[in-house]
């Protein structure tokens, strides 16, 4: 994987964050700050124009991401970031539409929108901050919470199975799917940058840490504990290929999982062709 040129943090702060953004609203050690920083560094790496870049968020701790960045930004309602992003992108395909969401936002209430945006293969970049919980409402289990976890709504342990969101997106037709983790920040920047460059629907799931509402209840009380847990429970795509299903149980595979280059199959590109066809009286 190409090594990312790292711009100084002070420059990143000055260029992309609003003045007085720090300290942020998030709890000490919260991984959302890491994801935003990587997202911004990825935007910087790709060289997106400020004016052409839009950030769309939903609700929850991750919903506040928009609040620090100096882009056109949207903070809507729970679960509906993706359809707003679809509207923006289809109305103005020139826009780079980036959609950071939480695990509850993207996989529960907004799960239907996620799979259909993937199916349409519309060129938006969805970033899922997966910290295994609804942090903002006090730590309930989400569809991405590991089975057995203690949360405020699974006080005896979560009996539900969790989604593999990347597999779901892949099955739905996303043409770029990757999983990263906040501990591997350089890789995360790379994965998001490639997702932004990719012409088509991109999903980047980032394993993140919520020490306050998740870690604390699951014997991983600090951000440091959760990051160490990440180190121990993630395996790279390459290594995963050499491991048996038994060995992979409970592990998160990180890296690029799907990358299908087919820019002409992207939704807004198809739409342009549809318009041409309609203009010529329905004949292609």
């Amino acid at each position: 994987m190409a090594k990312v040129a790292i711009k100084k943090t002070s420059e990143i702060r000055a260029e992309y964050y609003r003045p007085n953004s720090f300290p942020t609203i998030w709890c000490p050690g919260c991984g959302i700050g890491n994801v935003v920083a990587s997202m911004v560094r990825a935007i910087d790496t790709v060289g997106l124009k400020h004016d052409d870049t839009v950030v769309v968020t939903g609700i929850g701790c991750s919903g506040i991401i928009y609040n620090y960045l100096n882009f056109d930004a949207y903070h809507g309602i729970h679960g509906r970031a993706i359809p707003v992003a679809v509207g923006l992108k289809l109305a103005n395909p020139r826009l780079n539409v980036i959609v950071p969401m939480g695990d509850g936002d993207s996989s529960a209430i907004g799960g239907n929108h996620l799979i259909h945006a993937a199916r349409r293969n519309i060129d938006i970049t969805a970033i899922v901050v997966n910290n295994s919980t609804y942090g903002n409402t006090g730590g309930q289990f989400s569809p991405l919470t590991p089975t057995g976890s203690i949360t405020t709504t699974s006080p005896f342990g979560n009996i539900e199975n969790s989604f593999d969101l990347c597999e779901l997106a892949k099955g739905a037709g996303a043409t770029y799917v990757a999983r990263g983790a906040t501990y591997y920040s350089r890789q995360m920047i790379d994965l998001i940058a490639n997702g932004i460059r990719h012409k088509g629907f991109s999903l980047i799931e980032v394993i993140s840490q919520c020490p306050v509402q998740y870690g604390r209840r699951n014997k991983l009380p600090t951000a440091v504990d959760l990051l160490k847990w990440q180190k121990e429970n993630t395996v790279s795509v390459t290594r995963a290929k050499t491991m048996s299903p038994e060995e992979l149980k409970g592990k998160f595979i990180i890296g690029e999982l799907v990358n299908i280059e087919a820019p002409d199959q992207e939704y807004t590109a198809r739409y342009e062709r549809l318009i041409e066809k309609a203009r010529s009286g329905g004949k292609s």
Partner: protein
Amino acid sequence: MPVKVCAVTIDQAVCKQCGICVAFCPKDVLVADKEGQVEVAYLEECSGCLMCELLCPELAINVDIAE
């Protein structure tokens, strides 16, 4: 090629003392005092790996490397 690190600066007004930088610095350059305040204790050990800078959720760390 070894790099020369001139400074590791912590924006103390912003630092939330989460301890991430201290825990993951491979060279143990950073230490937290009893109150949790992060100090750059062994700058001379710093390899300029940027682990601390990239892992800080508050973007509170700047590592200055001389070219």
